């Protein structure tokens, strides 16, 4: 139980990091002159982190609910 709580807290920390990357960091990536793989940096950044969310949640679900 204690171990599960620790793992849950770790995933909460990752979730907090995602919130920061998708909010506070936006002014830094709002650059009209920078493109990554042909995509404007702002769009690329948001797309990247938005795609990270289901991956993280799927792993969190597996670790917290299936693996134990």
């Amino acid at each position, binding site marked *: 139980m204690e171990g599960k709580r620790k793992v*849950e807290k770790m*995933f*909460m920390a990752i*979730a907090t990091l*995602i*919130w920061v990357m*998708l*909010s*506070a960091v*936006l*002014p830094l990536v*709002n*650059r*009209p002159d920078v*493109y990554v*793989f*042909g*995509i*404007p940096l*702002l*769009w690329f950044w*948001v*797309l990247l*982190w*938005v*795609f990270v*969310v*289901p991956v*993280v*949640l*799927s792993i*969190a*679900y597996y670790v*917290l*609910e*299936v693996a134990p």
Partner: protein
Amino acid sequence: MEAFIASSIILVILAVTFIIGVLAYKLRIKVLRVDTYMVAGRTLGFLVTFLNMAAVIYSGFAFLGASGWAYAFGAPVLYIWIYGALAYTFAFFFTPRIWGVAKGQGLLTQADFFMWRYGSKLLMVLTALVGITFNIPYGQLQILTTKYVLDLATYGVLPTLHVAVLSFILTMVYVFLGGMVSVAITNVFLGIIMLAAMLGGGLSLIAYYFGGLPGLFKAVEGVKPQHAYLWAAVGRNSVQWVITAAVGCGLGFWVWPQLAQIVFPAKDVKVLRRSIAMTSWYHVLGIIWASLTGLVALGIGMKLTVADHAFLALIRDTFGPVALGFIGAAGMAAALSSAAGIILTQAILLSRNIYQGCLKPAASEREVVLISRIGVVIFTLVSVILAYTAPAYIVYLLLVGYTGITQMFPGWVLGSICRWITKEGVLAGLVVGLIVGVLTCFVWPDYLGIHSIIWGLIFNLPITLLVSKLTYRGG
């Protein structure tokens, strides 16, 4: 002929939806009890919980509106992508807690939680009324979205508002009969259609015209280079607006009472967490690709009088009536599945928290279900009347909806985590948050480029915390 093909596909899918809804009631409900009608007896497994969640969350407005936003404004549409992502990371940790409380205490609605947690009838009724009121324009909006879909899909041949109202009423027939069971099982069908349309339609349009995202953005850069980033100092195209709108909506997302209503029916926490993880996949595979179709329309130089027509107009002009019928049916599915969840929630809040909670506490289960059904009829009629008359004030309710609902965040979320949050604190914060929210919606709209949700919370949260600290008596 084209109108006939597209309309037929839409009508067939509507008929199948109706049959599934009625059959779900006939086959699944042996004895109609309050908890069966309101939360499907807390028996729903993964697939039904997941697709019910997705179908209720992604409304017709999200389906068509996101692409319209991308077409009209460009980068500000990113706030829709972001707030969904933020909301799911939050829900993964928050909803199991609230589900556990609901299961343990036998709570059936969000307002039940306020009654149980704060022991205040006033707070229960107030939250029920806020939930009912701010959902009224969303019910009406689903009819109008259905009309938008039909306008394009029928090539102007049918009286689209009448057909939209008829399809809305058909949906409400199975909501009336089976409550949450019928809504959830029907939403499995509708949720699959919606995802297939958003992902398939979006990807195929991008691939067909530009071969991929780099080509799409290159074309957009040639037409409207400012769509690639947030260029304004204030307003919708500013960075602070997108951040505050995304964070505000991310916080307010799970405060909507209909979302409590789709969380409570889950069988257990495992089902709930799995469903939330999968709905976050639904978000990235569905809404993102649907919204990018707005940029496709822009990139190919399509001239639209209504921006929200972007997705369907592209499908019609590119792939013809069969694809249009299918994607149009998916748009209508998105509208009607959300409407079903909204109307059911309004009816449940009326019967459970206003009728049974205040007027007649000794009401039997049968009576409460009857009042819920009467509520379904009442709110259906309200939505239909508003769809025909569409008074201007409904637009104001819509604008202030998210801001208003999110002011329940401290009572709903902090109240489930912190023992020392009191009813006095929540009431004071809620009232002040609503006043500030309304002022920053209409008098000083999104003052300094900061979304009114955040303005409301800036005043609401400290007041809730301060008054709670002052009035907490331990225990």
